[in-house]
Every structure is written in structure tokens, then in C-alpha cells.
């Protein structure tokens, strides 16, 4: 089971890193979400893998699983959820303000392309008239 969990974390982290390095905002959001999932599973395993053991005191229990990582994961999930929703709204805002979904907003929107093409044309006609 250790191998399975480790592989799951590795694959999710790898995909998360790959997507986070993409140039469009949507894959970046997806990548950060995957990274958040990976880190949650990772945190969970840090209390060691136990099956069928209670986290809180129980007289019939033969042993206990560590309850602290579960509390940490709960906190981390809530925070990651809030942050992701904020990032989505921000990505939408950037999409509307920068005119495209590139993370650097470097590619011009259709209107700007039109405007700059128009300007270039003007310049070339001016040069010709000289």
C-alpha cells in the first residue's frame, strides 16, 4: 500500500507541476488544484498508514491512528478551496482585462492587433509619402 500511495502522490505532483508551468491560466489553476490534492494525501500519510483504527479514544480499540494529520488536512483543504476559488475569479478578471488567458497577458487582443496593424500601416504610408 505504501507503493500505491507514494505513486499516487508522485503522479499528482508531477502532473500538477507540469500544468502549473503552462502558459494559460486555466491549466495553471488545474495544476495548483492537483498540487493541493497531492499535498493533502501526503500530509495524511505523515501520520503513518493505519487501517481500521480510530483516531479518538475508544475503549475497544487495539491501537490508534494519529489524529493530528487529519486535522491538518481538513484545514489545508479549506484553505486550498478558498484560494482556488479566488484564483479562478482573478483568472477571469485577467482574461477580461488583458484580453486573453495568457499568464503574461502578452499576446494582444483582437482589438489591439487591429489598432497596432492600423498604426503600422499609417507609418508605412507616411514613409512612402516622404
Amino acid at each position, binding site marked *: 500500500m505504501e507503493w500505491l500511495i507514494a505513486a499516487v502522490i508522485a503522479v499528482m505532483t508531477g502532473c500538477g507541476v507540469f500544468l*502549473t508551468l503552462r502558459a494559460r*491560466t486555466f491549466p*495553471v489553476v488545474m495544476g*495548483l488544484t492537483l*498540487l*493541493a490534492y497531492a*499535498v*493533502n494525501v*501526503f*500530509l495524511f*500519510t*505523515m*501520520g*503513518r498508514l493505519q487501517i481500521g483504527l480510530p483516531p479518538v479514544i475508544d475503549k475497544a480499540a487495539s491501537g490508534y491512528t494519529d489524529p*493530528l*494529520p487529519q486535522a*491538518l488536512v481538513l*484545514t*489545508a483543504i479549506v*484553505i*486550498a478551496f*478558498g*484560494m482556488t476559488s*479566488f*484564483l479562478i475569479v*482573478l*483568472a477571469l*478578471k*485577467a482574461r477580461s*482585462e*488583458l484580453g486573453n488567458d495568457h*499568464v*503574461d*497577458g502578452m499576446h494582444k487582443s483582437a482589438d489591439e492587433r487591429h489598432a497596432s496593424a492600423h498604426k503600422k500601416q499609417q507609418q508605412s504610408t507616411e514613409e512612402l509619402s516622404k
Partner: protein
Amino acid sequence: MNQFASFPVLLPLIGGIVILLSQRAGIGMQRLLNLGFTLLLLLLTGWGLQQSLSGDYQVILLGDWQAPFGIVMVLDRLSALMLFITALLASAALWYAINTDTDKQGHHFHVLFQIQLFGLNGAFMTGDLFNLFVFFEVLLLASYGLLLHGGGRLRTRAGLHYVVINLVGSTLFLFAVGTLYGMLGTLNIADMAMAVQSVAAEDRGVVTAAALLLLVVFGIKAAMFPLYMWLPNAYAYTTAPVAALFAIMTKVGLYSMIRVHGTIFGESAGDLAFVHSNWILVLGLITLVLAALGVMAARIFRQQVAYLILASVATLLIAIGINSQAALSATLYYLIHSTFIGGALFLLADVIRVARGTHADTFTKSTPVDQPILVGGVFMLLAIAISGMPPLSGFFGKMMILNAAIVHNWFWAILIVILLAGLMMIVALARTGSLLFYSVQAEPEKPAPALNKAAFAAIIMLLVTSPLMVLLAKPLTGFTEATAAQQTDHRSYIDAVLSRQPVTEVSK
């Protein structure tokens, strides 16, 4: 009595909620409330600082659970100092924001401002690593809102980068925290410092990896090479009061390095002692070189100020990397200085930007600013302070750092980098000053708008701290030395945190 120590964290939270509820009462009421809460916080942190002079640790057990089972808040000299300079900087930034109507550019400026202070104060006081993560998230979420306050293309673009890199940072923080918990079995900083002494030899590599991963996270916050790329644009394109308040944000990363790495991987950690120090020193030196080049290459004044902030962070990283008690004392002196002067420079850049109309703060020929002698004089004094020339506080801070570096093996490298970077900053700032104040149109098209005197008072207030730090250098260095001594005395920190008994005994 002891519970009063938690008020610097609670007050801004209550303030944020109250201001949110007073939304209908209008902007005037919100300003009044925010100013009231911030000034109250200033008084409270001043009182806390005065309390900490005794050298006691004020340990607050949240929910009355004994450490390391519950979360603790610790108020010692270092925390009290950070709380006080945050409150002072926040007061100046808020005063500027109110007098320039920056807070009217969007919604909820005052709420976010208080929540930002809540996150900062919590991060400065917590004694628990996971709790530090939570307060980081609080201060980051508020900072996202503040950074984007007012909107605009460049701001949105810089904000997107800032949010994404900090989300990556949060994920890395969780990986590091998880690994440390898995290895040490605790998240209380004092308890971790105990547990790290008995790490098995085969586990040392994993613990070192986690420690350095944590350094990456704090490096993102502090803008350490190669993780500083987000800073110049984010700070240059946000509103001035927010940029001024953010002068303390990079210091959160530095504080965390001093607190977390300094305590857990201190000299008592055996083979793991100071695994981070050389990394911080080398990366600090590289950051300083790049920051000085950035100062020279900047095309607009706000970006230049952002690189100056980066240079001050780099100088502090070098001082932390030198890793001695004298260097830590010098770090704290320089930290106070650079926070206030950096904040003042961002506000001044905004004054210049507004005065120059369409030319803004680009280095082009424009109409002269209103009251050029006053504004130019303040610019000159701030430039002297930030570039580390006598007689202002930057010079003394740098001299203390270099003085502490003499015994270090890499003294010559540190000396050459700090002095050369200082020279480059002086040249760049002299050029900026002459371009902004001397190279002006002889016959302006239209007169510059009148200087906003009330807002300018905030800059004067921050500027005055610099000569005050020189005049009061003796008591101040006495305080920073005592703080450094307290911070390097891990034994009593651990004892104070772990021996603190709950108020109520558990009934058997």
C-alpha cells in the same frame, strides 16, 4: 494579565469585522474606525514592547491546552519589536491612503487592511509551525485583495503572478510541514527544537531536505534569489499605501527564517545545526548583486524603489547568513530602518507620480513638481538613508553588519558585494534625483497639481525615524543586542513554552 498579550492578534480581527459591519455607515465612518483601531493597535503593541523589555516570555496557551498539545502564542522581544514596527508602518500607510482617497478606488480597503494586520501579527506571534502556515494564508489572502485594490491592466497581471507563486509557496510549505511532522512527530517550534536533537542518523537527510524546503517557502516570501521575480512588478504597480505596507511583508519571510530555522536548527541541533546558514548567505549575496543591477536598470521610479526594497532584503539575508549574535543584532537594526525608509520611498514615488501628470514617474523631462525643494529634499534624505550613506540610519546598519562579518570566513566577498551594491545604488539614485528634479521643462505647459500636505506628513513621519534611530542608537542597539541574545538562547525559549501550565487544572 498574561492574556492581554494576545490582543495584538485579536484587535485587528475584531476591527476587520466591525468595519465590515459598518459598511452602510459610509466611507467616513470606516476611515474613522480603521484609524481608531490602528492607533489602538499602535498603543497596544507599544505597551507590549515595553512589557517585553523585562526579557520575559509571555506564553499564551490557546484553549488552555498545554504545549505541545495545544497551539501557543509567544510574545518575546523579537515578536514585540515586529508587532510595533508593523503597527507604526500601518499607521503611516493608512494616513496616506485616507488623505489621497486611495481607499475610494475599490471596495473593502479598510476591512482588508485590518485583516492584513491580523495575519501579520499572528505570524509574528505564533509558536506553532502549522499555525504559522494558517496566518501566512490569512495575510496572503488579504494581500491579494489589497494588491489588486483599484484594478488596472498592469496591476491585474502582476497580481496574477503574485497569487500563483504564493499558492505554489503554500503547497511547498505544506510539504515541508508534513515531512517535518512525519520525522519529528510535533509541530510546536519549541518541541521541534527538542526533537531535532535526537533524529536518527539515517533520517538526517530527510530532515535537512524539509528544512531547506521550508527555506524555499520563506525565500518566496522574502524575495530571495531566484524567487524574487514577482516582487518588482507586484510592488511597482500596486497603490502606494499598499506598497508601503508591503515593505513589512518581505520581512515576514526573514522573521520566519530567524524564528523557525534559528530556533529548530540552532546550535543545539547537533549535526543538523545551521544547515540553512550558508545557503542564506550565498543566495543573499546573489540577490544583492541582481537587486543593485535592477536599481540601475529600472525605467520608472516605483520599480526602482521595489528593487531598493529587494536590495535591503538581500542585505538582511546576508546578515542572517553570517549567523552570529552580533550579526543578528545588526539585522534587527537594519530591519527597522529598511522597513520605514522603504515604506516612505513608495509613498514619495506616488507623490512624484501624481505631481508629474501624464509623465508619471518615468525618467523623462516633465513639469517641475510643486514645492520642489521640500519634495526633492525629502527624496535626497531618503536616498541617503536607503543607500547607506552617513549620517542616516542606513549607514550605521550596514556598518554594524560589516562589523559583525569581520570574523566570518567570507568577509571579503561580503564586504565587496555590499559596498559595490551601495555604490551602484548611490549612482542610480543620484541619476534619478537629477532626472526627476533638475531635468524639467523650463516653461511648463500647465502648473503641477498642489502638493497634498496632509498625505506628505506620513512620509515625513517615516523619514523622521531614520535620524531618531541614529540619535537613539545607544539604547536601540542595546535593545537589539538583548533581542538577539534572547533569540539565540534557545534553552530558555523551549523551557518557557513547554513549562507553561494551563490556568485550570484538569479535574480527575
